[in-house]
């Protein structure tokens, strides 16, 4: 009998404590936002840039007065590993944490399914890195994009091949992700339109290290341009190393995913002279200089998506502040109203949720990405 009473008491205590815990924990007001990007795996450096960009944005926002009504802003950085299944799982995890907005993801193949989950729960999502058209073309109300679009990047790349590199033929390789294959297909289509002959379009697998077979094929075909559309700098660096060793004579043109200091660190001599298309950021603006000063001190060299992630996070925080609420429709209304000079570009969203593209061609020279050619002005300088 005594034992029974004791157990009843313990059980009652357990139930009561459950009732009280939430009340206690919700008294401190925290604004929760999440990032989704690959923090492990082959694309970890880009993913870490996204996380660091968002952290920097929160730091700056807090210094400028913070969020009225909240004690602090907490970032939940989630790891998607560039895997669609993992992306959906992390999106659900973020929903559980009751975040008010999400910055991410990195791979288009992750962003697309994750955004379906988040939009279903009315959580705004701003991607700093996914360039595939479908990200914003599906009519999701709370999906925004800070970077450019592939259907702008592909024509810019082809125009550069034709006018900048005077190419007549091209050989295309992609690694079959939503992003890389989408872009490669776009390039192929645009080449046909612009009168550049596509001599071949082959695919490799994600996670491959050995590209000797495809590169031997490319060398035999010997097109003017070797268009390399890979997801991330790491396979791209391995590919240029092997291309150089094999003596590939074609000019190599890459895309925005290899705009990453690590590409040059790993590729070394082989990275020299590689061309790539990437959104233009004016590095002389006061906004960029202030960001660069703060970011490099803490995290080192600025990678491809740190600036976009910073702007995306700032956009979200500014909109929440202006709306004075976390209601998704009010946040959206404020995002659409934003019109200011960000770090990476001038921030102004269109009805689809895009913020415009500004692709130019870069060239790797002396271990640096140097602006080389722009569709509007031709050769730089």
């Amino acid at each position: 009998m005594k034992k029974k009473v004791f157990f009843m008491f313990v059980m009652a205590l357990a139930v009561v404590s459950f009732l009280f815990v939430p009340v206690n924990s919700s008294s401190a007001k925290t604004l929760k936002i999440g990032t989704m990007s690959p923090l492990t795996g082959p694309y970890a450096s880009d993913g870490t840039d996204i996380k660091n960009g968002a952290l920097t944005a929160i730091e700056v926002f807090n210094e400028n007065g913070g969020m009225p009504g909240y004690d602090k802003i907490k970032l939940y950085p989630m790891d998607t590993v560039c895997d669609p299944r993992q992306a959906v799982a992390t999106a659900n995890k973020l929903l559980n944490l009751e975040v008010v907005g999400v910055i991410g993801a990195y791979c288009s193949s992750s962003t697309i399914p994750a955004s379906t989950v988040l939009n279903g729960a009315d959580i705004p999502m701003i991607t700093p890195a996914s360039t595939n058209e479908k990200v914003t073309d599906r009519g999701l109300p709370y999906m925004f994009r800070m970077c450019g679009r592939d259907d702008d990047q592909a024509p810019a790349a082809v125009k550069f091949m034709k006018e900048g590199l005077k190419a007549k033929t091209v050989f295309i390789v992609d690694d079959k992700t939503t992003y890389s294959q989408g872009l490669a297909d776009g390039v192929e289509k645009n080449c046909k339109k612009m009168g550049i002959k596509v001599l071949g379009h082959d695919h490799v697998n994600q996670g491959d290290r050995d590209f000797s077979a495809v590169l031997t094929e490319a060398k035999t075909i010997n097109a003017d341009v070797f268009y390399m559309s890979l997801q991330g700098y790491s396979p791209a660096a391995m590919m240029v190393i092997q291309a150089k060793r094999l003596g590939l004579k074609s000019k190599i043109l890459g895309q925005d995913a290899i705009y990453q200091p690590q590409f040059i660190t790993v590729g070394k001599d082989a990275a020299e002279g590689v061309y790539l298309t990437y959104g233009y950021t004016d590095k002389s603006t006061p906004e960029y200089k202030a960001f660069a000063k703060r970011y490099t001190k803490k995290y080192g060299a600025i990678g491809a998506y740190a600036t976009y992630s910073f702007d995306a996070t700032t956009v979200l925080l500014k909109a929440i502040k202006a709306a004075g609420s976390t209601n998704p429709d009010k946040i959206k209304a404020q995002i659409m109203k934003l019109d200011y000079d960000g770090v990476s570009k001038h921030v102004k969203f269109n009805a689809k949720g895009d913020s415009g593209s500004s692709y130019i061609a870069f060239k790797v020279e002396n271990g640096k990405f140097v602006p080389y050619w722009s569709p509007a002005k031709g050769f730089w300088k």
Partner: protein
Amino acid sequence: MDYFIQQLVNGLTLGGLYALIALGYTMVYGVIFLINFAHGEFFTAGGYIGVIALSYCIAHGYTQTHPFLCLAGAFSLAMIYSAYLAVGVEKIAYLPLRGSRLAVLLSALGMSIFLQNGMMLTQGVMDKAYPGELFEGGFSFGMVTISYLQIMIITMTVLLLFGLNRLVYKTKIGMAMRATAQDKTMSALVAIGSNNIISLTFAIGAGLAAAAGVMVGLYYGSVHYDMGFNLGMKAFCAAVLGGIGNITGAMLGGLIIGLVEVFGAGYISGQYKDVFAFIILIGVLYYRPTGIMGENIDETRV
């Protein structure tokens, strides 16, 4: 014809690397019937030790004065480290559980995850660049370009495989290994320390994998903490294809998988190269369930 020769050299290089890793799987399986899932991690660890040793050489300028000494040092350090790592893993995670084959298998899976994450935490998630440009260069005839690194990989692979064959079939230790593989109790009766021999088998397998790790780093320009998974999986397939438990089979399996991948990618399409490798594997296993060399598994097994 040039195209064919070029792809043949590419395929031999890749196949040689697969063969070196596959040997570790096959030797361990031959002795204790364990599929050592942590083997891919011994390979990665070797790659990392290689980059650390070579970076040390560069920092002290030794690569200018003694490039080949540096290279030899990197290889031996990596091989010795991985061998010790493998013996440690064997003693800690496999030896106490050897009573149940399933328990050891799960322990091997766990060790693989543990080691991979350990490398991620200590070495970081970024690619580590290999100072491979020291040994860059090559010669070409017609359209064929053969780099010194490819020659080095193929030569080293042949030497290591030859050495291993000598060790297993011509020495007392090799005889002890073969005896242990056939019957542990019986070999113990004739004064063979089977536990020591098993440890030695792990050490040799891991040493070969570590050599492959350094070569992969030099050849592809970088190492990454999870590269052991992909290559390890292919090497495991090579071991199964050749007949798991059989050393010659593993060498053969590695070369076949490497050549099929490269020729499949070169002549049909790069996106299906893994498919071709696995079609060959399934096709062979359908007609010969024990693999190509697997029929006399009891006599030649190590």
